[in-house]
């Protein structure tokens, strides 16, 4: 993350910049600077991430990398950059459709490239684009040479065949994403005006150039950077941290309240429902994750709401725990930490309490109406438990709904899922529900193109933001069907015996959640369910779901508050009582969590009506156990860290030829030494 908080840019480099205070009353970029540079504001950098053994991502030099701009829209344009162009190094403006492994390998091997700016391809590349690995989270799941070796390293099924692995490569030049099409147009215009070669020979100076700043402080691996951190913390008066571990919080809640300060009775059984809430892409903090994360946790939230509305929930013999794991993209940070806490007795539950496991993974792109159930083939072979319980409940629940449940073949392994981490620790019967039988249906897995368009979310034209929030899309209806099936199956699994036709997920809630988590967080519903002092987290930009290093991120907060709103109850407490439940009688602070939310806006007034919500929603820390155990080189737990940096920015300008620069130096000497020449002139 940034090494210094907030606005690090100070007022210019000259110590006499205070002169501009006299002239303009403010000190932000004087007029000469504005004549020279055009800053590019809507960009996303590629930053450096490190794990136990490698560094991935991009690096620029400490004072930025400069290069003459060249626009590459087809592969032939690359020849100018790689061989023919007379003014290397070049800064390439790459069309999004050419951002593939083949082109990047060519750019990596040359010194004539000083940086890259990628413009988003509109529409999405039709052949798919995924910078993730072909075999995500390989080596950190359950399959290894000791357990199901024939399934390890995607030997049988390649989950992400479109994956190029670009995100996991190391580049020594900066790569930026240009999010704004207007800025891309400005750069292309500058290129057309100055840089286009005339009649085969090179273009004339001055040329249009770009400078990218994204210098990363950490190098080599997590082991190195954590060692340097500890040296700094031990010996330096002003320690300079170079990297931070990726961390956040898992959100969990139970159907029946439990005492979170004590350990649960070993005989109590829980059904665990899990989804991941984070995603990733090549660029920093760009992770729309529509299909890979949002679809699954929105369905999960809707199922939790539907279950809580059932009339006889309190009579169910087993409890249900709804868990939302953060950091799963980076080798299962959240789930590995929860398993570790359960094993070390730091969590109210233990692994023995888990009766069965249901996970939802990428459920929005169903082919027809089929929803696939994946189970672990190795535990089926060693079946001492009843693996069929989950499946039969699911089959029974899908009767009458527009969802066809089907099992994948017995010789197929589990897809990458949090369930694998639980299996690593203990045999638990469980099932993973997805919309893909073998390889992912999602052709934009962990990329910047995993947007609402990818899950076929379409709104009619001309709707206001409020109407768009309320409009029920087909995607929402489809996810509602899945949520209904899951809720009914969970009811059965938990021992419910009554008719489940009353348990229905609400498509209206789902469509509001999809809008809030994929299009605009700053909508009226989200505003009404959060705490008053968290208003600032609702931004107007497209929501991103990257785990980041400062916690909790917006996504975690919102999942927490949405879950509290959907599964909690409104209680009649005043603000002081709600904020201090330990002083309130009958509040049972250990069983419940109380939140004072700001409430919705009255249609005719400007004030909100806040109220107190009581729920069982809690946060548990999602930091990889490797950092707790201080095993920076662990191969057992995730060791992902993110480097720190000072400034990240991009700008374009014109550069002069070397001859003009020399004459500029001469002129400078002339003006500053004119006084010197005067003194040797004889004057009496």
């Amino acid at each position, binding site marked *: 993350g940034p090494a210094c908080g907030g606005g690090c840019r100070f007022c*210019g*480099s*000259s110590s*006499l*910049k205070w*002169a*501009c205070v*006299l*002239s303009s*009353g403010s000190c932000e970029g*004087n007029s*000469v*600077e504005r*004549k*020279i*540079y*055009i800053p590019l504001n809507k960009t996303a950098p590629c930053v450096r991430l490190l794990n136990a053994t490698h560094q991935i991502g991009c690096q620029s030099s400490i004072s930025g990398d*400069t290069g003459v701009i060249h626009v590459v829209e087809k592969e032939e344009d690359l020849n100018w950059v790689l061989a023919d162009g007379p003014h290397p190094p070049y800064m390439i403006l790459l069309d999004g459709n050419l951002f593939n492994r083949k082109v990047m390998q060519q750019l990596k091997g040359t010194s004539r490239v000083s940086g890259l700016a990628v413009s988003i391809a509109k529409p999405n590349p039709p052949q798919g684009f995924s910078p993730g690995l072909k075999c995500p989270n390989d080596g950190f799941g359950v399959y290894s040479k000791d357990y199901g070796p024939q399934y390890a390293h995607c030997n049988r099924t390649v989950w992400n065949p479109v994956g190029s692995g670009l995100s996991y490569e190391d580049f020594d030049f900066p790569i930026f994403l240009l999010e704004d099409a207007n800025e891309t147009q400005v750069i292309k215009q*500058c290129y057309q005006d100055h840089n286009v070669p005339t009649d085969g020979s090179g273009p004339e100076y*001055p040329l*249009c*150039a770009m*400078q990218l700043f994204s210098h990363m402080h950490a190098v080599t691996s997590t082991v190195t950077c954590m060692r340097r951190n500890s040296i700094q913390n031990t010996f330096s008066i002003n320690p300079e941290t170079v990297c931070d571990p990726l961390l956040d919080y898992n959100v969990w809640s139970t159907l029946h309240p439990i005492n979170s300060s004590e350990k649960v009775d070993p005989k109590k059984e829980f059904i665990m429902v899990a989804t991941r809430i984070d995603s990733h892409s090549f660029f920093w903090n760009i992770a729309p994750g529509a299909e890979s994360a949002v679809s699954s946790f929105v369905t999960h939230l809707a199922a939790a709401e539907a279950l809580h509305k059932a009339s006889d929930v309190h009579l169910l013999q087993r409890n249900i725990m709804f868990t939302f794991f953060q950091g799963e993209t980076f080798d299962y940070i959240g789930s590995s930490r929860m398993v570790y806490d359960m094993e070390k007795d730091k969590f109210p539950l233990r692994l023995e309490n888990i009766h069965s496991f249901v996970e939802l993974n990428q459920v929005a792109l169903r082919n027809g109406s089929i929803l696939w159930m994946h189970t672990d083939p190795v535990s089926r072979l060693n079946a001492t438990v009843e693996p069929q319980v989950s499946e039969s409940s699911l089959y029974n629940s899908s009767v009458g709904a527009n969802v066809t449940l089907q099992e994948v073949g017995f010789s197929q392994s589990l897809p990458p899922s949090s369930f694998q981490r639980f299996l690593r620790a203990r045999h638990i019967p469980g099932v993973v529900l997805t919309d893909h039988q073998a390889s992912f249906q999602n052709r934009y897995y962990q990329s910047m193109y995993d947007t609402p368009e990818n899950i076929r979310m379409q709104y009619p034209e001309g709707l206001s933001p409020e109407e768009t929030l309320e409009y029920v899309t087909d995607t929402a209806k489809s996810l509602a069907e899945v949520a209904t099936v899951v809720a009914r199956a969970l009811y059965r699994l938990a021992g419910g015996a009554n008719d489940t036709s009353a348990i229905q997920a609400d498509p209206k809630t789902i469509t509001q959640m999809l809008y809030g988590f994929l299009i605009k967080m700053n909508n009226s519903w989200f505003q009404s369910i959060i705490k008053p002092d968290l208003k600032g987290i609702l931004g107007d930009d497209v929501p991103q779901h990257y785990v980041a290093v400062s916690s909790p991120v917006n996504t975690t907060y919102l999942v927490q508050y949405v879950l509290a709103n959907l599964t909690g109850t409104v209680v009649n407490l005043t603000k002081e009582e709600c904020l201090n439940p330990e002083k309130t009688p009958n509040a049972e602070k250990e069983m419940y969590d109380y939140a004072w939310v700001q409430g919705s806006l009255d249609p005719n007034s400007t004030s909100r009506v806040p109220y107190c919500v009581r729920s069982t929603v809690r946060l548990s820390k999602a930091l990889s156990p490797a950092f707790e155990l201080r095993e920076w080189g662990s191969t057992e737990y995730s060791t992902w860290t993110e480097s720190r940096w000072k400034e990240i920015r991009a*700008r*374009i*300008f*014109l*550069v*002069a030829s070397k001859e*003009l620069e020399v*004459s*500029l130096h001469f*002129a*400078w000497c*002339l*003006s500053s030494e*004119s*006084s*010197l020449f*005067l*003194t*040797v002139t*004889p*004057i*009496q």
Partner: protein
Amino acid sequence: MWPRERKEDFCLQICLIFSCALPRADCHVSHDSHQTANSTTKNFPCCTCDLEPRQTTAAADGSACHSCMILNLRILSASAARVPCLSSLFSLCRAFFWLVSLLLASLIWFILVHLSDQGNARLQYGLLVFGAAVSVLLQEAFRFAYFKLLKKADEGLATISEDGRSPISLKQMAYVSGLSFGIISGVFSVINILADSIGPGIVGIHGDSPYYFITSAFLTMAVVLLHTFWGVIFFDACEKRRYWCLGLVVISHLVTSGLTFLNPWYVASLVPIYIITFCMGIWAFFTAGGSFHNILKCLSCKQEDDSRVMMYSALQVPFED
């Protein structure tokens, strides 16, 4: 050829500029000016410096560059004067006067801008022109104020000196004041631009002329020279009460300032400004007492006899036979 004193000064100056970078251990320091004269021409670049005791210690400690810079300022500000200390003091004072005039002018402009309608572009442009004119008039007013101050100082120094003559020469002070005025003005007009020219980019992406930097540099040089010449002319005019000279100086300053508003049409602003500079230069030369005869003498490289020695022998009491 130049008189010997000039040569000493020149050598000393060059030597000092270079010796900033040399280790101080090689330098001999001495109070004796007689030894200074001999050693300078012999031991270049390792030279002796006419240092005051305080600065000797500093040099011996190794803060050579610091004392060198002070010496440079002294030499620059009073190449002909034999009282470097006073000249540098006056030049700093002069620069401060210029700064105060600029501050007052910008305060006036700032207040006017905030009292007026900020959306009206024509009005703001007009205010800028007015502000520039006010600044010019204030600078000339402060130049006059400085002249008065210098006159008073001159009278005061004359009364306390031994021989009734003030150790400073008003002609040299005129030159010094103009020069420091010019330097501070040049520094202020160019330092912002220099700071931005250090980056990788040049002006031009929005369609401005790419000759921005080089034109600024030439303009700054012209401004520095102009202020020096104006200083000489102005002081002389005030001395001899030739008020039409004063008026001409103020008018030419206003014209120069106005010509800069013709930028970015650089030809229209730079050429007339240089013509004005040249004319002012010639006028200042003649005002300061120069003539064609002097130039010819300088160019013909005639070595003057050491008049100092002659004076000494002339004063010597002849031996009694």
